[in-house]
Structure formats: structure tokens, C-alpha cells
């Protein structure tokens, strides 16, 4: 797992308290509305997302930039590639 710090983002998606498969469905919908090269921040407290989101990025052709641990959730960063 790649840890990063102070990553900026163009859009943010708060999925705290929500579980599988919302951590994959909502970023998918959100990225459709974003421009190529823009960065999406996903806030989640769902542990499964730590494995699922990098895998999902690879399958969908987006770049997983890394994650940062916040006080009450994880912040995962995805760069839209296509």
C-alpha cells in the first residue's frame, strides 16, 4: 500500500459509514463526470476499500495514487486516466 500526504484533489466523495459495494459504485459514477487527469478523493472507513479500490483502479484503467489515514477515516486518491 502506498501512503501519501497532503494530496490535493478536484473532487471529494464522502463514503464514511457506507459499505461494499458503495465504495466502488460511487467512485465509478463520480469519475464519469470528471475530466481526464483530475483527481478524486474518496473518504471511507470501510477496510475492504483498501484492497478493493487499488484493484478496481487497475481494472478500470485509472491510477491509484495512494492513501492517507485521517482521524476517523481513510482518504484514497484516484487519478482519472481515461
Amino acid at each position, binding site marked *: 500500500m502506498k501512503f501519501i500526504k497532503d494530496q490535493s484533489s478536484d473532487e471529494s466523495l*464522502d463514503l*464514511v*459509514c*457506507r459499505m461494499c*459495494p458503495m465504495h466502488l*459504485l*460511487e467512485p465509478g459514477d463520480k469519475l464519469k463526470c470528471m475530466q481526464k487527469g483530475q483527481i478524486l478523493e474518496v473518504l471511507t472507513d470501510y477496510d475492504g476499500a483498501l484492497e478493493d479500490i487499488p484493484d478496481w483502479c487497475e481494472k478500470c484503467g485509472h491510477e491509484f495514487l495512494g492513501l492517507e489515514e485521517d*482521524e*476517523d477515516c481513510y482518504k484514497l486518491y484516484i487519478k482519472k486516466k481515461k
Partner: protein
Amino acid sequence: MKGAYLDHASATPVRKEVLEAILPYFSEQFANPSNVYDIGSQIKQVVEEARASVAGLIGATSEEIIFTSSGAEANNLAVKGVAFAKQKKGKHIIVSSIEHHSVLNSARFLERLDFEATFLPVDAYGVVDPGRLAKAIRPDTILVSIMHANNEIGTIQPMAELSAVCKDNGIFFHTDAAASVGQTKVDVNELNVDLLSLSGTSLGAPKGTGALYFKKKVRLMPLIHGGIQENGRRAGTENVPGIVGLGKAAELAQKELPEKETHLRKLRDLLIKGISERVEKVEFTGHPNNRLPGHASFCFEAIEGEALIFMLAQAGIYTNTGSACASKALKTSPVLGAIGIRADLAQGSTVFSIDAANTVADIEYVLEKLPAAVARLRSFSPIWGKEIPEYEEDVCT
């Protein structure tokens, strides 16, 4: 037999237009809205149209609405959902002492899980003092829940002042508007609330329907886990006919509200004036002005409200005691206790809740039958005309 149904706070008939809108979704259009094929996505679209109608009624956006099975479920989701989601920040919540049991008992349930709850007292009209709310707030307070209008005494709270206290302190503010949506204008922006519960039961929608409004910034822990319905916030295949009905009822309510409110106010005032003139020793409960337009509540001295309700029902008049405690548990209503009504007087609680279909003739019929029913019950009463000593009665909590 002549009659008058004046218990719309308990249940309203499903409107003809609502019923017509609902029926196809039991049979011809039965697909699951989560399905990706065409007949499923068509149903999903219908659900979203209903969501937009409900949002429109209260000045919200579709993304801010979660469909529930009732106002009670919406209250549970608001109180417990926020508490569970924010417990790392603090474990203290504030509710008023005259909330619906779905709020009061959610707060008590949270107390069992090591949360702390403050139950705010109210004045003689059932109004929460914003100054008292400000004093009750602590550094660990995460939620305030105060109902918009009380179902038992009709009082409407000073929402602007109460929400200002919450905003000043950065605390989420929830209101239970189950009694007021469809009766009077309810706009989430004007009320300045973060969460709001509503019910289909008093809106001309089918029973078993409700919704929770929540601002996007509010994190809610789901109470029902499972699938992706309601964007992962409430699992379970949607009650499509119910949702369609709630949407149609909301659409009609939005169109008809200004005219309806005037009509209700007229009938309510006629009823209050008529009872005050015709029946002695009766106490009007709730706020005289800031109250629901279709709500009139009284405590008749030296009678049991339950007995009066049965007597009136024999004449085809349907009303309520206003409280499940009084009706079923034979205890004093916590709402009437909180506003300082004497325990013996509280036993004579009777609530009239009026809706658009009621007429002046309905009110005149009640005014014709009620005085005789009260007089007859008082003629049996061992306490009528006697001084009642002060005593402590078990108040339903």
C-alpha cells in the same frame, strides 16, 4: 349514520389520485428497481421521480432524501445514525421531553450504549426555550433533536431560534416534522435544519411510508445493512407502491397546501371557540397561536378521555386521546406531564385532528354531540365538582 372523522393525526385515507398512481406497481410494473434491464430501470426512474416530489415539498434536493418505512424509522435513523457516525467526536445528545417515542426511545437506547442524553423541559405551552437549549450544549454534544410540531398538543417550536443555537455551536439539528408536513409549510432551508423526518400516514399516502431529509455533510450510519438501495444508507428492496404513493401525496400536498391551511385553520378555530362556549371546566392544551392549523387539543375535567372517545365513536365521531400512554398503558402522557397538566386533568385528554376533507358541518356535528357526551360522563364521575387533592401519578416515560 352521520359522522365526522377527526383523527387524521393517526391516519388519513389514501387519496383517490394516490391510489390510482400506486396500483400498477403491484402487478403490471413489478420489477425490482435495482435490476439493470429495462423494466427494472424504468421502476428506478419512477422511484427517483417520487423522490423529487418529496424533496420538492420540503425545499430539498433528491440526493437529500432517504425513503423509510415510517416517520418512526426516519427518526430512528436520524438519532441513532448520527450518534453512531459521530461517536468519536462525542456521545451526548439533546432531545426535548415532548418528542415522539421514536425519538425518546432512540435516545434511551443510546443511553444503554454509554451515550448521554439530556431531555429538555418545555414551558406550559410545550415550547422549548432556546436559552435553555444553549445552556444544555456541552463540548461533546453531537446532535439536537426537537420536533417541529407536537402531535398531541399541536405546538409549533421556535425553529429559527433553536436552529441558530445549534448552528452557533456547530451541532447537527434534527427535527421530526411528521405532524406538520402536509399541514403547514415546511421548508428545510427556512427551518435551517440538518435532518428532518416525515411520514406518509398523515399526508394521504399509504401507511408504512416515510422519509428522512439529510444535508449532504451529515454522515449517517445505516441501521439496515445489506444492498445498495438508498445509496447504501438503507438496505432492502424498495416499497415501490408506497414510494410512488408518498411521491404523489407530496405532489398534491405542495399544490394544495395554501388553500388547505386556510380551511383547516377556519375549522380548528370554529371547534375551539365552540367547545369553549359549550363545555365548562375544559382546558385547551398547547400554544394558542403557534400551533398546527388542523389541531385542537383539550383536557376535560373529571372524565376519562378514553371513555369520551368511545362515546363519541358511538355517534360516528372519531378523535383520539393523543397518546399511546393514555390509550393503551393507562399512564399519564409524558407530553401533558411535561407541560404541567394535573394528572387527573390529563386523563381527560382529547385531540381533534382535522384534514382537508372535513367540513363546517363536521365541526357543527361535534359541537352538537360533544357537550352531552361530556355531561353524561361527568354524571358518572365520582370526582366531578369535587376538589382534587394534589398527588403524584406515574407519568409514562
